[in-house]
């Protein structure tokens, strides 16, 4: 028996504010959360969402995950802990880097004050699985709990794994998503050194003038449940994770394979996994980083997977144009953005898109949202996430 994976709750903290619907509404309205070249989650005040102890015992990336989880569980109508058997509740949360803010600050303490002055909380705060562990502990999720690590595909990989856990029968409910807080001196300097960041500080995916990505931070959390169990408890269903696939470019440490071969394969396999024909997809939420290489190879991948003709009709937009690149949180935050866009039957815009580039000739929904054509029946979309290391993860989502 194949189980169907329902999405019953979402939560997000992003540069556009606190709240998943805040993200959706502000992005759709064409607002940007990027200031001075960074996408900071500036409206997030940890103490408004977490206890003193929780703040002290969590790196910022875990704090962001806790706050997004709180919203997602309230959205799903969970009262105190998971509905049903806690042993059947899992937690999978991805991150690109983990608690790098803690690592950097404690390294300074060690150099300036000595080894015996670093905090005993250093390791539990900086470990990349901290978000998953802390969220599971707080909400009594006693099934499988782990983090996924695949750079900027980590959030999408987490949701894909969560979907598999339910489909395979390992769990009935999964709290899943991604989180990142890497706007730190070392991380920004390192991304700058590899020429990945935008010199202009403007995120303009697919535009001819695009010059790199803008660093962002935040978290996105989804509650996935076995559809039958969700219906049995009378939960409101927002939509479904219909399919998921992941491939590897096996090409280069950081550069995507130029033809988009691996990304195209991931799209094709995700649609196959979902049992969805390419012509039934009405919206593509692109990885769309605003780097010269990604946006070209991703455009190629979309053309390969959907065929030139269908690809030309599809609205393709990038959430990163409004919030920057949330690295390991990107795949999760953008899956939420995709779901809410599909629910409203609207294609949110790619901001700052003004000058077409040769060969990048898809419909990138420039600067203004518009109603999704062809979504009178089912509202099905895909969300792409690709990471350094050649990781490609694609989710196929359907809104209720």
């Amino acid at each position, binding site marked *: 028996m194949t189980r169907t994976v329902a999405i019953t709750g979402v939560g997000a903290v992003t540069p556009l504010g606190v709240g998943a619907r805040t993200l959706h509404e502000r992005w759709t309205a064409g607002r940007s959360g990027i200031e001075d070249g960074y996408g900071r989650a500036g409206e997030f005040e940890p103490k408004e969402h977490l*206890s*003193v*102890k*929780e703040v*002290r*015992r969590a790196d910022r990336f875990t704090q962001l995950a806790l706050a997004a989880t709180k919203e997602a569980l309230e959205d799903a109508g969970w009262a105190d802990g998971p509905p049903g058997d806690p042993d059947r509740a899992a937690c999978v949360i991805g991150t690109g880097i983990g608690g790098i803010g803690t690592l950097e600050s404690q390294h300074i303490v060690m150099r300036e004050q000595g080894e015996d*002055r670093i*905090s*005993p*909380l250093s390791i*539990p705060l900086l470990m990349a699985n901290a978000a998953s562990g802390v969220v599971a502990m707080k909400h009594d999720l006693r099934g499988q709990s782990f983090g996924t690590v695949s750079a900027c595909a980590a959030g999408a990989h987490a949701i894909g794994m969560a979907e598999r856990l339910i489909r395979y029968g390992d769990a009935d409910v999964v709290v899943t998503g991604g989180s990142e807080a890497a706007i730190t001196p070392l991380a920004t300097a390192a991304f700058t050194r590899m020429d990945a960041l935008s010199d202009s500080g403007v995120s303009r995916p697919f535009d001819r003038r695009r010059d790199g990505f803008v660093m962002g931070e935040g978290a996105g959390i989804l509650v996935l449940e076995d559809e039958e169990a969700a219906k049995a408890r009378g939960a409101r269903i927002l939509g479904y994770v219909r399919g998921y696939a992941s491939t590897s470019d096996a090409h280069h440490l950081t550069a995507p394979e130029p033809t988009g071969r691996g990304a195209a394969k991931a799209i094709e396999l995700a649609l196959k996994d979902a049992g969805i024909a390419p012509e039934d997809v009405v919206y593509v939420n692109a990885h769309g980083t605003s780097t010269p290489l990604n946006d070209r190879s991703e455009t190629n991948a979309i053309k390969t997977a959907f065929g030139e003709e269908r690809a030309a009709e599809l609205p393709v937009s990038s959430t990163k144009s409004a919030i920057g690149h949330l690295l390991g949180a990107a795949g999760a935050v953008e899956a939420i953005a995709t779901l809410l866009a599909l629910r409203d039957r609207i294609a949110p815009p790619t901001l700052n898109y003004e000058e077409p580039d040769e060969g990048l000739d898809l419909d990138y929904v420039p600067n203004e949202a518009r109603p999704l054509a062809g979504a009178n029946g089912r509202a099905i979309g895909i969300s792409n996430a690709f990471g350094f290391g050649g990781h490609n993860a694609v989710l196929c989502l359907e809104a209720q």
Partner: protein
Amino acid sequence: MSTTVTREEIEQRVFKALEEFGAEPDQINPDAEFEAMDVDSLDLVELAQIVEDEYGVQLKGEDMEGIKTVRQAVDLVMSKLG
């Protein structure tokens, strides 16, 4: 200097640390047990660090064994101050 430190001062410093660790202020008193305040071994390592920074007293892992309350912790610091 440590010779001028009073028991009350040490107690107040421990209270302050406990509040920073997230213990509820109305729970904090000399006979409150660390466990009841949700203060665990990781917090106690930090507490030992604070005591060392402020009073120059080194508390090792074995010193802290069996220390369950604020009063016991203050007693320990006082005895080390000699």
